[in-house]
């Protein structure tokens, strides 16, 4: 099985913390789905993709989020060599799973749905774990679980706090039970981190469903959400089909979750960096966990041929 990946050697992932984050717009103007305002695409990017008129938070690619949060140049990416296997020899109507992965990699410029690494936020070290919804709907598979477990274990070794930015469309069906088991694997990693009294800050962003919502993302020490983000376990279409009931207004929005006691607070994208800095300072008390120097080398060398 080790070989199938080499067949697709033409793909080479890019590194760095500020690339791959913009989808080329169909046109220069974007219509806000909330207030219908036409926004000039570059202006939207400049405002962190928040509608300047109504505050609607557009989805963001993972690397865009990283760039907005971290000190420039401080993100050191980890485990970029990890690639999905195909333990089920899974084939569906769209063909074999490995082909689907390859097409997705080419389309998105990412090798998997989860990006992990360590960064600094105004000088404070922080392990950062960010999901990319464009990669197979940020479905959680074995690579996700392994990258996250490694990142959290490293945080534990170094005494760093962890922040996760969580989006997901659900399970990575193509990996079957392995996908389900990543819920256990990720939760267990954070259970260990908690025993070291290191905090996990979780940000839920649109959309966040399925196994991610039902695992580490919602049992963090601090659970935040972006305004208007849809967050739930079962998807809205599934619930409608099964229950044949009309969904309540605002069902599964961040605001709905706040009212129902499921999140600590809603944070606007522009306030996130400041809020994360405050949280780090509150929990990483007074130099008790001395920030280890960020390794000075570039991001892990990716040597996939």
């Amino acid at each position: 099985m080790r070989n199938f990946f080499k067949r697709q050697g033409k793909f080479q992932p890019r590194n760095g913390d500020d690339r791959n984050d913009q989808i080329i717009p169909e046109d220069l103007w974007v219509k806000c789905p909330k207030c219908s305002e036409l926004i000039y695409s570059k202006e939207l990017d400049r405002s962190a993709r928040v509608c300047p008129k109504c505050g609607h938070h557009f989805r963001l690619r993972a690397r865009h989020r990283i760039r907005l949060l971290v000190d420039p140049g401080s993100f050191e990416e980890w485990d970029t060599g990890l690639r999905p296997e195909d333990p089920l020899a899974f084939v569906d109507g769209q063909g074999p799973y490995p082909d689907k992965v390859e097409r997705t990699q080419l389309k998105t410029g990412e090798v998997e749905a989860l990006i992990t690494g360590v960064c600094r936020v105004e000088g404070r070290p922080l392990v950062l774990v960010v999901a990319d919804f464009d990669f197979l709907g940020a479905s959680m598979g074995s690579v996700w679980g392994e990258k996250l477990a490694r990142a959290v274990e490293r945080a534990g070794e170094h005494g760093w706090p962890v922040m996760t930015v969580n989006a997901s469309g659900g399970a990575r069906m193509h990996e079957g039970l392995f996908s389900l088991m990543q819920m256990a694997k990720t939760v267990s990693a954070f259970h260990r981190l908690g025993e070291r009294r290191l905090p996990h800050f979780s940000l839920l962003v649109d959309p966040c469903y399925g196994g991610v919502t039902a695992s580490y993302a919602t049992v963090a020490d601090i659970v935040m959400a972006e305004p208007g983000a849809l967050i739930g376990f079962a998807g809205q279409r599934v619930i409608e089909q099964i229950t044949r009931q009309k969904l309540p207004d605002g069902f599964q929005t961040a605001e709905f979750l706040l009212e129902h006691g499921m999140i600590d607070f809603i944070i606007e994208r522009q306030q996130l960096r400041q809020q994360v800095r405050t949280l780090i300072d509150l929990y990483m008390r007074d130099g008790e966990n001395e920030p280890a120097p960020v390794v000075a080398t570039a991001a892990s060398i990716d040597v996939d041929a």
Partner: protein
Amino acid sequence: MTTDVDEMTSDAPPAPTAWDRVKLARATDRPTTQDYVAALFTDFVELHGDRLFGDDRALIGGVARFRGSTVMVIGHQGGTNTKENISRNFGMPRPEGYRKAQRLMRHAEKFGLPIVTLIDTSGADPGISSEERGQGTAIAESLMTMFGCRVPIVCTVIAEGGSGGALAIGIGDRLLMLENAIYAVASPEACATILWRDVEKAPEAAETMRVTAADCYRFGIVDDIVPEPQPAHEAPQEVIAATGDFIEQALRDIQSAFDPETEDGVAAMLDARYGKFRAIGAWRDASLDALDSATPES
């Protein structure tokens, strides 16, 4: 346990397909949690309620004596008729169910009682009110609770292990599975709908999802398979008794490996539990491949 090509050419009947297993796992008269409790446990005292909102009858539990020791037994429970199915929500737990399970696990931990879970659900309840009360959060809390629970835990998939609703009582030191049970990230029907947009493709989905006990064992997820020389619904007494023997053996193995009466033993048991799930995954490290072939690129 895996299907053998030889079988196809021998006189023996063909091995069951994945879809056959799905149908066996779902057989109407396949033994349920209550049947196992009645046959294997004595002095069962069912404990109700999450102390928060309600009592979920889709997930039951209580203290009982099992082969001489007091244990906590927790399992999914559907109904045997329409009325009971409705009151038990067809065995699909709501947040109250997971929270009851968590309460019972903390209770077991307090009194040093081993936990036995019996998994049999098509999955978590997909309803509006379950979302309102934090279905995802409740499942996640269950996982967190089980990773920290300082008593031995043995989980057995007795019929259908469906999605997060199954996993929520599926974290333990040993995971057993009956030969005709299935365990899957989603129902074959859901998978067929999502990936083929055709629920009729469920048999194909079941095949490609690798949901059988043999698959789960091959993947290193399941520790042991309880054989069903005859399907459980045809020979319930024999299969239940065999399951009891496997559970007893698993508890003995854990207790002799770790001595959970001591602090160090508990720590080692929790380490092993962590390690068990830490190791589950199918991935490769492309950078190591490249190192293997000694052709690094930067």
